[in-house]
């Protein structure tokens, strides 16, 4: 057991932390948000320069061979800066699908483009009716001459409005809630029959609702097994949850720092409000939540590439439960301890509050992951 980052990991952390500290101030972020796509093309280019966009891909495929720990380092820094760019969508989600399911030719065509910052992808895994069930897929893909024809709806596609292409789950066989019969298809943004309705999300990021109306794609658009994609989808979702946990830790860390700073400077009744024990203990509870979340994010990162899907699922779900609960606890305390100013759009704290609240609702909330963990008999089981 070794909690020390390697030299490479330490270097990565330093450079990402510095990038965020230098280029992701509150006003920078507001400016990026107003740009096309709701994020900064310039920052995206910097991520490419730093090697972040190719980070998790194998070196043979044009990446840098990073694992969940490296992804977590990036995501934690991004959480600290409330980063807007579609890193999760492109690199973690769509990139994960390519890593685990694409053939060599597909990877050769796509991975170098992603790594260079020339290709942004999104992943349409959800549908209006599916809530958090990844297997609940109504969208259908039928085999036609020269490829596939896809029809259906995809909801809450993160950064789906700005992506150059979207990977969607679509059913090649079976009924809506069958685990078998699901395939993955790469759909270009300009494909005839694809309509994208983009919108801002509560936390200042972007998403889209997609309608696929007889969209025709070639045979090369199919990624992996046409009817057996669900295990890959679940694996990538687990990796993404681990990444979100790391992002949340970055947010929590910053929220606690901002709140502590406020407690130490805000004067009331002739003294700093941080001298009041009732507020001190609430700040401590926030600190405990942060450290417990950090522990679980590490655990999720450690288990995210576990080959045993059940062990992986237990760990990742447990971490998401912790993160979701901590998001509520830290979020409400951070706003409360700020008082009225915490309610304003002008203050940073509320933006973190909104992001961590939404993080709980991505890829399964506390209730969803608690049920999943309970169904897998929990974490403490009989000893061998």
């Amino acid at each position: 057991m070794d909690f020390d980052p390697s030299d490479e990991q330490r270097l990565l952390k330093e450079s990402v932390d510095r990038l965020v500290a230098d280029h992701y101030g509150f006003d920078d972020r507001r400016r990026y948000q107003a740009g096309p796509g709701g994020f900064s093309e310039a920052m995206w280019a910097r991520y490419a320069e730093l090697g972040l966009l190719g980070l998790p891909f194998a070196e043979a495929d044009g990446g840098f061979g990073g694992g969940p720990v490296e992804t977590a380092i990036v995501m934690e820094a991004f959480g600290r800066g409330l980063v807007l760019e579609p890193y999760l969508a492109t690199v973690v989600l769509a990139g994960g699908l390519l890593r685990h399911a694409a053939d060599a030719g597909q990877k050769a065509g796509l991975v170098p483009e992603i790594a260079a910052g020339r290709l942004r992808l999104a992943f349409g895994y959800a549908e209006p009716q599916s809530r958090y069930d990844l297997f609940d897929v109504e969208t259908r893909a039928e085999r036609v001459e020269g490829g596939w024809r896809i029809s259906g709806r995809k909801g809450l596609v993160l950064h789906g409005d700005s992506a150059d292409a979207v990977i969607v789950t679509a059913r090649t066989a079976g009924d809506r809630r069958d685990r078998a019969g699901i395939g993955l298809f790469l759909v270009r943004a300009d494909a005839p029959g694809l309509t994208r309705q983009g919108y801002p999300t509560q936390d200042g990021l972007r998403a889209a609702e997609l309608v696929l109306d007889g969209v025709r794609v070639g045979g090369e658009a199919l990624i992996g097994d046409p009817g057996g994609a669900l295990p890959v989808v679940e694996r990538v979702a687990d990796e993404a949850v681990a990444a979100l946990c790391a992002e949340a830790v970055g947010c929590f860390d910053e929220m606690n720092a901002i709140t502590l700073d406020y407690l130490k400077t805000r004067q009331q009744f002739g003294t700093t409000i941080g001298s009041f024990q009732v507020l001190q203990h609430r700040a401590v509870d926030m600190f405990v939540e942060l450290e417990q979340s950090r522990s679980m994010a590490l655990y999720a990162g450690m288990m995210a590439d576990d080959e045993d899907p059940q062990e992986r699922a237990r760990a990742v779900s447990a971490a998401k439960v912790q993160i979701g609960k901590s998001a509520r606890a830290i979020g409400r305390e951070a706003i409360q301890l700020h008082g009225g100013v915490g309610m304003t759009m002008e203050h940073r704290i509320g933006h973190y509050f909104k992001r961590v609240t939404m993080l709980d609702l991505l890829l399964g909330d506390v209730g969803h992951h608690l049920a999943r963990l309970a169904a897998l008999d929990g974490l403490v089981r009989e000893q061998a």
Partner: protein
Amino acid sequence: MDLRFTDDELAFRDEVRAFCRTALPAGIRDKLVAGGSPSKDDMVRWTRILADRGWAVPHWPVEHGGTGWSPIKQYIFTEELAQTPAPAPLAFGVNMVGPVIYTFGSEAQKRRFLPRIVRLDDWWCQGFSEPGAGSDLASLRTRAVRDGEFYVVNGQKTWTTLAQHADWIFCLVRTDPAAKKQAGISFLLIDMRSPGITVRPIQTIDGGHEVNEVFLDEVRVPVENRVGEENRGWDYAKFLLGNERVTIARVGVSKERIRRIKALAAQQSVGGVRLLDRQDFREKLAAVEVELKALEMTQLRVLANEAKRETGKQDPASSILKIKGSEIQQATSELLLEVVGPYALPYQPREELDGRNEPPIGPDWASTIAPSYFNLRKVSIYGGSNEIQRSIIAKAILGL
């Protein structure tokens, strides 16, 4: 970074597990599974089994009987004992006064006391708390006045755990009444057979006798039984309490309790459904398991950092162990109460059950559940209450 146990650590875990399973007398294990406490004889017997294996004081320096294990291996050992479940070595000797003696004590004290701690020849108890000094420990008033080669000690200690079995007590006493609070305190080792010592039991809300009052009336203590320097006792006490924090999370204890909850919930039927199969119960339990896993990872982070930290400098994460560890222990006891249900009601103290011929009322495992729930309220009070812990974190870590 690799947070998995190494092959060597896993092999070690299996070795400890196998040893505990075969070496621990079944009667002791059964008692602990049922939620009971080991007797003095059980403790002595088990400690000597561990001592014969060379494992009675793993964290001590090798010259005094320690093993030289890494902090992670020590942790694995403690966890395996707890999950067997086997009694933990008596903390007052092994974790508290022993390290104080080998760190600050004289050569004569080391030779005299340490080997007897290893084999539990001497049962130690802790004389810190006083009726007027609970969380505010430094306000203690027990006095020790020098009289030639003796201190004459007068005062009262309280909450003295298992003093009824004790051969020795280590006490904080005030040797300089003029000095400010922490400065005038010394650390004395006192023979419990000394004239002038009276032990009076305190019955706790679970009906048990675990803690006591200890009265010291003109007790003569040889000066050679003072540890370290006069009036420096507070430093030694802080050292002692700092060591306590590493073991206080009780992760293994809570894991064992969760397995017990699952085993018992599998036998209970609620509304025609096994309790263990009810979704609401499973989720409630899973929520505690998540907290416990987070605590375990926090504990491991603290341990991994320990070797790298300057001595005396506390890892911020370590102060969480007491708060979360106690909350989780209490949560498992609440779940056990929920599992047993209405047959937690009959009050059937162990001694009465052992002494009569009729079978117990209700399931035979039920009688300890409510007392254990009552008893575990202590864990958020002792060792610096959780509120004190929060104030420590606020000051030392958050800078408030």
